[in-house]
């Protein structure tokens, strides 16, 4: 009964709307992405520059969640070391992962470094990097991961993203402004100023965080 009411209200609210034009804000975003930023993907400058504070807070939430998961599963690791069992991967898994894993890593790097040209971006690429790590755990079920090295990579990428954001504040006077690099021609790989740089850094950071989260669940 309550569900039917809920669905009816939502249907009335959203279903009766028949849009044919896009709002003025979005029109301004599209034109500015083409003319000012020369970014082929319209979503990228919105995500990283105009609404960059959202992305900034999102990365902080990701970092906090990784920290919380590490803290919560800290006791389990000590307990898990007592009852260690020896597992072995089957031949099918080993062969399949050997084919798929390099492809996944290359694909994830492609996704987050071409985020300003094609659909995709840092977060999707990072999650694909994490899924490549899931395949690694299927093949090597007994090996431990060097969490400290991963934390160092994550910290370096976080600081690098902060530097790319602060350079805009120092050189151009506004935070998260990517215009300190040349804008280039629309459609080229070296275009859209510092947006690809930010995407690469965020992609590596998200990927490492996904790997950390998955490795915490293995214990």
């Amino acid at each position: 009964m309550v569900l039917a009411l809920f669905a009816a209200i939502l249907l009335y609210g959203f279903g009766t709307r028949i849009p044919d034009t896009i709002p003025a804000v979005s029109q301004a975003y599209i034109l500015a992405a083409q003319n000012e930023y020369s970014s082929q993907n319209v979503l990228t400058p919105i995500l990283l520059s105009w609404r960059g504070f959202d992305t900034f807070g999102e990365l902080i939430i990701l970092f906090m969640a990784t920290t919380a998961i590490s803290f919560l599963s800290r006791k389990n690791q000590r307990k898990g070391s007592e009852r260690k069992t020896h597992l072995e991967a089957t031949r099918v898994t080993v062969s399949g992962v050997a084919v798929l894993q390099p492809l996944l890593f290359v694909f994830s790097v492609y996704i987050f470094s071409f985020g300003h040209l094609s659909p995709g971006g840092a977060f999707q690429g990072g999650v694909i990097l994490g899924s490549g790590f899931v395949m690694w755990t299927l093949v090597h079920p007994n090996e431990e991961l060097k969490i400290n090295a991963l934390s160092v990579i994550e910290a370096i990428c976080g600081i690098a993203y902060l530097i790319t954001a602060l350079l805009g504040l120092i050189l151009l006077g506004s935070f998260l402004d990517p215009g300190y690099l040349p804008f280039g021609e629309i459609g080229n790989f070296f275009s859209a100023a510092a947006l690809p740089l930010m995407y690469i850094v965020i992609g590596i950071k998200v990927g490492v965080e996904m790997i950390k989260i998955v490795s915490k669940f293995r214990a």
Partner: protein
Amino acid sequence: MIIVITAIALMSVGMWGLFSLRNMLKLVFAFNIFETGLNLLIVSIGFIPGKAAPILDLPGIRENPLPHLVDPLPSVLVLTSIVIGVVITAVMLVFVVLYYRKTGSLELPDQGI
């Protein structure tokens, strides 16, 4: 219109699951289904039938982009919300694991919540 109906159906399934299931793992699944429906609903706000994704790759779109593209703003907001959803799911799963290690079951207790 079909997108809106699908999104609301997904949200209804997820909400039914959140209200009526007792297994914690299934609650996490129901939350994920609800969130998928919610993201689809937000994306459907910006969707206009017959228009392309906001990527300026074809020359015809680059010359005059405004009449050819859908609204990019809801997609960007959903991109943020998907990542937050993944993180929330991970934290919820950690709590489920801790609860299972402590009590040995995934069922919610009948009283005392």
